[in-house]
């Protein structure tokens, strides 16, 4: 259930295309982070490694595409000041995403090395997460279902590739800094504090219920119990009433 990008509506006048691409990169980065957090835990698996790899590759493609686009835009001398400010803002968005991605890539390398899968006994941390991360990956790749076609030794092979890819990303970031002279601290955010609350009003009730579990565990259980008790008492009471009514009827009629 991939959600449509409704973000562009909240960000005001924006060049749609760049923003879509950036948005995509942002999404993939967020999903990648989720996947990396699951690494080394009991929800780790071959599939997860493959998901990580695919997500990573997608992210890198998007990053390169974004970079080309934005560099071209920023190098153009004939843009207005407002436009330039806007592109600089996008640039800051872009660089932050790539930084996050790079950090996660490095961390995934370390954890991946610490928790190999092709060993007789896997020592994965029992974190309580047992489900798979397929849906997250699917969201990242913007597909309905993920297909897994990797070999069994993906974990070791992938790590080597990961190292090279990290080096590539590093280099790309350096180049970016050299070529594009944008002062990140000069950018002003368009969103104000608390902006995240606005477009996520449509959160849905189910998630609210779920999350509140985490916050109020003791209370929730107690409340649940008393609720049950109430229902139970109600049922018993109704039952007693019914029985009393029937008995009365019988007494009256007999």
């Amino acid at each position: 259930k991939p959600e449509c990008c409704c973000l562009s509506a909240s960000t005001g006048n924006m060049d749609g295309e760049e923003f879509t691409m950036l948005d995509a990169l942002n999404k993939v980065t967020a999903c990648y982070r989720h996947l990396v957090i699951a690494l080394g835990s009991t929800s780790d698996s071959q599939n997860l490694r493959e998901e990580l790899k695919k997500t990573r590759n997608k992210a890198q493609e998007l990053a390169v595409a974004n970079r080309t686009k934005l560099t071209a835009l920023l190098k153009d001398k004939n843009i207005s000041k407002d436009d330039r400010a806007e592109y600089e803002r996008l640039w800051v968005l872009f660089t932050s995403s790539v930084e996050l991605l790079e950090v996660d890539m490095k961390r995934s390398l370390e954890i991946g090395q610490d928790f190999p899968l092709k060993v007789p006994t896997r020592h994965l941390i029992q974190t309580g997460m047992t489900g798979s991360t397929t849906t997250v990956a699917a969201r990242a790749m913007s597909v309905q279902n993920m297909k897994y076609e990797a070999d069994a030794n993906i974990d070791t092979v992938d790590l080597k590739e990961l190292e090279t890819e990290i080096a590539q990303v590093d280099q790309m970031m350096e180049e970016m800094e050299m070529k594009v002279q944008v002062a990140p601290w000069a950018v002003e955010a368009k969103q104000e504090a608390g902006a995240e609350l606005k477009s996520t009003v449509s959160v849905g009730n189910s998630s609210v219920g779920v999350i509140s579990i985490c916050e109020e565990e003791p209370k929730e259980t107690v409340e649940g119990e008393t609720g049950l008790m109430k229902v139970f008492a109600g049922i018993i009471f109704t039952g007693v009433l019914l029985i009393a009514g029937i008995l009365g009827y019988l007494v009256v009629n007999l």
Partner: protein
Amino acid sequence: MQDPKTGVKSQTQRLVITTIPHAITGEDIVAWIANRFKIDATEARAMGTMMVAFGYIYPLQDHKRLMLKPDTSLYRFQTPYFWPAQQWPVEDTDYAIYLAKRNIRKKGMLELYEQEQYNNLYKWMNHKWDFIVMQAKEQYRAGKERKKPDRVVFDCQERAYWVVHRPPPGTVSAMDYGHDRMVDPNMEEVKVCIMFTQQCIMRPRVKSSVSIGALVKYTTTYKEHDPFLHACLPSNPWLTDDVTYWTLNMPNVEIPTKMRVERWTFSFGELLMDPRGRADFRLFLKKEFSGENLAFWEACEDLKWGAAETMKEKAQQIYKTFLARGAPRWINIDGKTMDITVKGLAHPHRYVLDAAQTHIYMLMKKVSDLIPQSSRKLKRRRPSLSPIILRQQEEEQKAKLAASGPVDITQLCRFTAPVPHLAVYTGICEAQSTASPGFMTLPNSAACPSPISVAIDSTPASERRFDGNGGPSSSHFPSIAEASVSEEENQPPAPKSRMALSLSRLLRRGCNAPSVFASLSPKCAVASGGGKVQPLGVEPLAQPQPRRIANFFQIKVDIPPECRIYPIDSEDEEDDSPDTARGGVKEIICPWETVTKQEGTG
């Protein structure tokens, strides 16, 4: 720990709708640790608490208190991503994203400290804020893709991570000491570092109040001598293209300008540095038969600044001329310094004579207090004096005064005309000015401390002779204010003569306390170049009896032709009483001074 057979017993956490596996109780943890490491329960508990505090295990209930409770409270292992072991830097960006996510979840109802942090981060990470919002939303949505139990676990994990790394207020964080603990102090690099920092601590430092005070004093003293800051006479060559100023200030000009002479009073060093001043000083020393001191000092300077090849010969030459026993120009330095110097001359280098040079310098400095500053000349702004006559007069003065020994007074010549900023110098001047109400003091003197006035103040009252003119000495001090206020104006002669009178009295007073002055002279020297004080120029100064004050000094002023300076005979005026001020004056000064006195007192 996780071994299903030998590890900590794993349980299931039951929430309302979901059950989440892999929960462990506190008591099980403690028991397992105690068993595994063969330690007792308290230690096991402490160890467990450390694990919790660092975030390897997090509590499911009461999540803010990171400690291990040995009861049935539940804990869970943290995912490796959130372990502190890898020492990944904890980024504020991540924290901001986490807070934004939490904001979404709690629909804006963050806890107080979280709210504060949020606002702070919004302020200083403002440039990234769009990214943070976007990322938070995306991560939130991605999280919703997972199944409910996993979602719960994920949220709990993240929350636990941030409790460890951004502890709520009032809690103690294990991260405070972090993983970068103390280094081994026995390591070589560390030892060097320790030594360096210890030396840094021991380095003597000057209080900024002191150094700033010195700076202020310097600028006040010199500010009028800087042609860029203050108009210079006759005119600033850079502005008017008239080079008279430079010609008048050539290094070896016949008659030094007034400003130049004023500079000599600032410090002995100034006098020496100015070639003209040094020449005059040399002349004086010759009279005093102590010219070899200056010659030695100059030779040492030559050694210090000279070429390296000739250094050795120069040093030897100097030794032969000045230091050796029976040398032709033997200088008088104390035994210890002589020892050091002679030893050093075995291996001569540039600074081998530094100790001796400093000694001689100090000696000359003291001497400069004694001398009649016949070398001081003031040039009138209106050059109406023939330089030859002036020179003759200078020579005369020098000769006479040299013959009469170190003696006092301040021959003051009053210049008519608007020369408002004639130099007035130092302590004695100030003292004089304190004594004379309405006495003009010039800025220079105002800047100088007044050790003399202090001394005068401290002389026993009995020694002070007042006549009706002055009040108690304390009342003199406010007169400085008046004096400085009135400095720009020309004073009519009459008040000046009165001033002169009281001045003379003051000087006499001063004369009565030679010891005081003696102790003061170094201060004087410090204060302004050997304390050459002449409240110059606008008043005639009564010529007080030259007591045999060793350290009292005087300035000879360049006087207009109508004024002649008479030598002062120290012996004759010892027994003056205050009343005979004028009488005492008679011998000394310029005719016009006498005239004005008569006017004033008449």
